[in-house]
């Protein structure tokens, strides 16, 4: 009865392809994506391509300036620190630590937070209320402070940083998931699905989840940038990765003594932290703009 004329070029783009097109139209988001991919590759392959090992000390080349300065050489591309260690190699080794551990933390918090959040989101009544209020109380403590508290209890070291930052990030995932699921349950198509005879698990997986993935993805990118900053901050405060470790925050704190004579020992690791957080934020922002017109 209806006359359909399909004028499009033939295919209907699926939702993921549409999101990719919107995302790729934004040059900043695409640049951020390239940077994130580069960081991921560095985190995995960095230690293999570094010219020197992280602890190798060259007593002849103490506090050497980076290669673009007159006094520097190309062998030590980004200069050396006060113990003669090559900064470039230490950065590559540290990428593995800072970035890699951040990803691991976020993935773990994501899984645990998602499970707790979905259970509490799908429940109604007193039980859900208690759980969400408990987690709201945890959310009121800033994540860095929470991490410091956990490290104060468990002692310094990169392993304990994993638990500290993980515990600090989980309530955010729980809250975001719980909120998103709770909001979805008010929608009319959930009522329609209930009238179709679906039980709670089917509603959760087939009806609610496709709408909640967006929030989770956005929360993940926010979480990664928060995790990187927290790990670096803890390393700077000597509560995280300890002294000879090439973790970026620890590198910054080791270079602080020489900040006036050899500023590159502080600025270059700081710049690396800045670039990685900026890249993640650009990707997260691009994703949010690409996903929001679909939501409207």
């Amino acid at each position, binding site marked *: 009865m209806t006359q359909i004329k399909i004028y499009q070029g033939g295919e*209907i783009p699926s939702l993921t392809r549409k999101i990719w097109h919107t995302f790729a139209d934004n040059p900043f988001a695409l640049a951020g994506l390239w940077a994130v991919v580069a960081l991921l590759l560095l985190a995995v392959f960095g230690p293999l391509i570094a010219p020197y090992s992280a602890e190798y000390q060259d007593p002849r080349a103490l506090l050497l300036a980076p290669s673009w300065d007159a006094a520097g050489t190309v062998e030590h591309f980004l200069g050396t620190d006060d113990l003669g260690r090559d900064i470039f190699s230490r950065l590559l080794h540290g990428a593995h630590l800072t970035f890699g551990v951040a990803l691991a933390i976020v993935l773990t918090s994501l899984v645990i937070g998602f499970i707790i959040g979905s259970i509490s989101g799908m429940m109604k009544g007193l039980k859900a209320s208690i759980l969400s209020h408990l987690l709201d109380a945890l959310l009121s403590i800033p994540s860095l402070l929470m991490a410091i508290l956990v490290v104060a209890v468990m002692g310094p070291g990169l392993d304990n940083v994993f638990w500290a930052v993980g515990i600090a990030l989980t309530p955010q995932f729980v809250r975001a998931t719980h909120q998103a699921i709770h909001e979805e349950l008010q929608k009319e198509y959930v009522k329609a*699905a209930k009238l179709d005879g679906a039980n709670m698990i089917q509603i959760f997986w087939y009806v609610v989840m496709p709408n909640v993935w967006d929030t989770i993805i956005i929360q993940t990118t926010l979480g990664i940038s928060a995790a990187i900053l927290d790990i670096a901050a803890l390393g700077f405060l000597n509560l995280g990765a300890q002294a000879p470790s090439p973790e970026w925050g620890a590198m910054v704190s080791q270079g602080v003594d020489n900040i006036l004579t050899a500023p590159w020992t502080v600025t270059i690791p700081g710049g690396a932290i800045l670039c990685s957080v900026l890249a993640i934020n650009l990707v997260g922002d691009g994703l949010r703009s690409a996903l929001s017109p679909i939501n409207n």
Partner: protein
Amino acid sequence: MTIPLLRVNELSKRFYTGYKGFKRTYNQALHPVSFVLNRGETLAIVGEAGSGKSTLARILVGADVRTTGEILFEGEALELRNPKQRCKLIRMIFQDPNTSLNPKLTIGALLDEPLKFSTDLDIKERKAEVTDKLRKVGLLPEHADFYPHMISAGMKQRVAVARALMLNPKIIIADEALTALDLSVRSQILNLLLKLQEEMGLSYIFVSHNLNIIRHFSDKIMVLHKGEMVEKATTENLFNSPQHEYTQRLLQQQDLRNHKRG
């Protein structure tokens, strides 16, 4: 005497609204109503907001639980809380096609849901069923790959009708399904419903406040006012000689004989 398709006896609903002193207070949303619906008939439920018509629709389709009364489907009582049994017998078309379709699922997936949740058919049979229902409501099988935001409001409401047809129910409840549509789209959907009623022998329960369309479309009418059934009659009798004064007032307001500034 044949058993009627649906017989409702003294159905009522009250909502619990809190404590006053030490007694629990209730809000009687629906006073006891009774009616009968036969195969191939259309029953219209008319009333203003707060008259309990949406409550009645929701109780019949299974979204709310009744307080008293019984519902007899072909002579057998329907259980209180059994959506799986109910969804094969009575289904609903929702009012707003924009919010009742899941925006992240394709139309094929949307129509597949009732089959997935309530039947044991395998994938090929489900796909065939979806294509068959799409054809019945006037859409093409290619539409199963579209997303809801790509189609117009009229087509969305057709998808809602297709979803209501999915488990081959005998009764379909249309809860103000036509009020959100433009005039010509409304007529198209009405024609579709009439055609389906003839082909498949469906019965409709139509909840609305537009007396004009109801007069054309329904066999019996029930008027509700503040939760009570004020009048129940066939269409002809109600429009030609309304008994209750509330009905008379309603008819007067919608009197459509081209009164200028009536």
